[in-house]
């Protein structure tokens, strides 16, 4: 190979790999990310059943009910609207009524119930997921106390 061909082969190989990577990233962004909603957004969102989303808000006081076996149901609220959620598994240590929570999962077709496969409530007693805090603030909900995002 001549000097020029060598250079071309290396550059050509590199560029095509990078193009492949960019296409892959774009494809993954269209497939594998979850949008974040609070209950009040859902009416406008028109989600197709089965679309993975993150649902954030507060665990409504008095809504936590243990069903058969490991299944727990509760409501996530932004104090105006609320969404019933079911989850099978162990809830995080800091899951409590009246506290911030983020549930990841999807709506099943023909049902208003959100089926979560992951429930997050993070590492501090005063923790409010930042996303939830922002949204709730935008909706005019007073959070009270000093926000400590940890």
């Amino acid at each position, binding site marked *: 190979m001549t000097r020029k061909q060598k250079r071309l082969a290396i550059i050509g190989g*590199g560029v095509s790999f990078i193009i492949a990577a960019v296409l892959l990233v774009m494809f*993954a*962004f269209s497939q*594998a990310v979850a949008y974040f909603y609070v209950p009040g957004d859902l009416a406008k969102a028109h989600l197709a059943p089965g679309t993975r989303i993150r649902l954030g808000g507060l665990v409504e006081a008095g809504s936590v009910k*243990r069903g058969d076996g490991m299944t727990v149901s509760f409501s996530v609220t932004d104090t105006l609207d609320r969404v019933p959620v079911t989850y099978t598994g162990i809830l995080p*240590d800091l899951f409590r009524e009246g506290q911030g929570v983020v549930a990841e999962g999807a709506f099943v077709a023909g049902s208003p119930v959100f089926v979560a496969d992951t429930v997050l409530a993070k590492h501090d007693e005063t923790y409010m997921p930042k996303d939830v805090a922002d949204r709730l603030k935008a909706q005019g909900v007073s959070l009270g106390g000093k926000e400590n995002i940890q």
Partner: protein
Amino acid sequence: MIIELGHYALVLALGVSVLQAIMPVFGAARGDRALMEIGTVAAKATFLLVALSFGVLTYAHVTSDFSVQNVWENSHSQIPLIYKFSGVWGNHEGSMLLWMLILTFFSALVAVFGHNLPDTLKANVLAVQAWIASAFSLFILLTSNPFNRLVDVPGEGRDLNPVLQDIGLAIHPPLLYLGYVGFSVCFSFAVAALIEGRIDAAWARWVRPWTLAAWTCLTAGIAMGSYWAYYELGWGGWWFWDPVENASFIPWLAGTALLHSALVMEKREALKIWTVLLAILTFSMSLLGTFLVRSGVLTSVHAFATDPTRGVFILVILILFIGGAFSLFAFRAAHLKAGGLFAPISREGALVLNNLILTTAAATVLTGTLYPLVLEALTGAKISVGAPFFNMTFGLLMLPLLLAVPFGPLLAWKRGDLLGAGQRLFAAVAIGLVAGCAIYYAQHGGPVMALAGLVLGAYMIAGSLTELFLRSGIGKVAGSVAVRRLAGLPRSVFGTALAHIGLGVTLIGIVAVTAFETEHIVEMKPGMTADAGGYTLRFDGLRDGKGPNYTEQSGHFSVMRAGVIVTEMWSSKRLYTARRMPTTEAGIKTFGLSQLYVSLGDGMADGGVVVRIWWKPLILCIWGGALVMMMGGAVSLSDRRLRIGAPSRARKQKRPVLEPAQ
């Protein structure tokens, strides 16, 4: 009084840093030895001052001096002594001070061990280090001062976050920072080379040990953090693609690329401009990571508290350093002479492929990490980019690299023989197939993809050993000759082989856990049993207990095999009294390379308790592989060729350099 001494030492450190940032550059430009020597002295002095300051903060924590706001917020008189020590960096201010300590530690190392460097290069490197040190000490003093006092001294502290009350906090952050911040030296070398406008193979030889040291520590830090999250959080996961994990992983990927490209530059004088760019990029990623973690733009366990001024301050530092370095690069890169040519199929070609894939993968992880932030800033939409995204992109992109790893060392410099290398790797492929199938069979089948992954991992291990076999001539020459040849191989050859083997081991661990792990969530009452990984767990009941600063309910489990009790496990729910914060302590038992993992859930009304039980096959391979990679790094670092650098000339220069300082 002692506290004020620490504060004062930090202010003084800033002053000395500024001196160190300016004088040596002028000295280097004018060829003035005395001015250049200021850098060496100042670097040592700054380190001692920051160390004193850090010592004072440690003293405040250990003696529970609650008049210091930082101690009051993050400590408690009742916590065990070890957490009083590690609590020093278990908070924003303290961890920034640790960052500074390690930065100045590396500057001091350059000052002490850099006597074989050309005077001007050393002076410029120390000056660039001091620019970083000045910026960060200013940041600490203005926005994150750990020495702030409280007027009304509280009687008791607010306790260290219970999640951080673990031996992991004592080890993980210092190791991570040693890696993260260690790359500052590479950055400084790159910027210094750009200032001088001169760069050669010797430069690469000087940079390589620093890169290796930082890379080894970063590998350790990331692995340690992963294991810590695994056992402490009680979720059974070992990697979450959490933005903060990514923030440490991106510099690791870039640093790994740098390690390899510096090799090409050292041996063949090729890829000069790229290596300089990569050195800048790697530390830029470290800075970006610091920004992401410390500014509070991300919601994470690691973001201790949010204060907008801090975010803006670090952002300014980030822009100044990254922007400055890249401008300098754009200005000077054209002056750097390009080096040797090589065929696409050659050792250089393989290392270019390595760099291409690693940097593309790093860019992908970076994109996934920053995309939600950018999207939110632009459109207000909030998304979470999690494991599915990264598995799809990063996993797929890394695949060709893993396949190519054993080929690299077998190809000759300049012009390699791919077919020949392939033939020599034939045995490795065969071993990979057999070993992969054996593990697959031992795990009673599973997804076919898992088989492919296991074969790939075993092939990488065997392929990396092939290099050692071939170079020592095992099987071709008499045994004693082969052993002598093997012992005579340069340490860096062993280092390479070990690092690549480690990667294979980690891959096997990842594949095995992903494909074969079993998870059960069951409600258990005393006496009930559950099966996992060939063992039977019997729940024996709950017991109340009390620690120094928490109360706990722990569940006792008997682990049985074929009806015989082999061992017992405990998993508990703790309530830390000071913060009223509950945590879960997972019960973990190791069987060979696999682990049984039990995590206690909520108690039920009828006296039962929800229990989550995992069988994690070969999970220890994940961190074991990282350990082997670190050994590879350490062995390479001990290579004579790296230690001595440019020997005779430098030693003659040493004396006249020292004289003016006396």
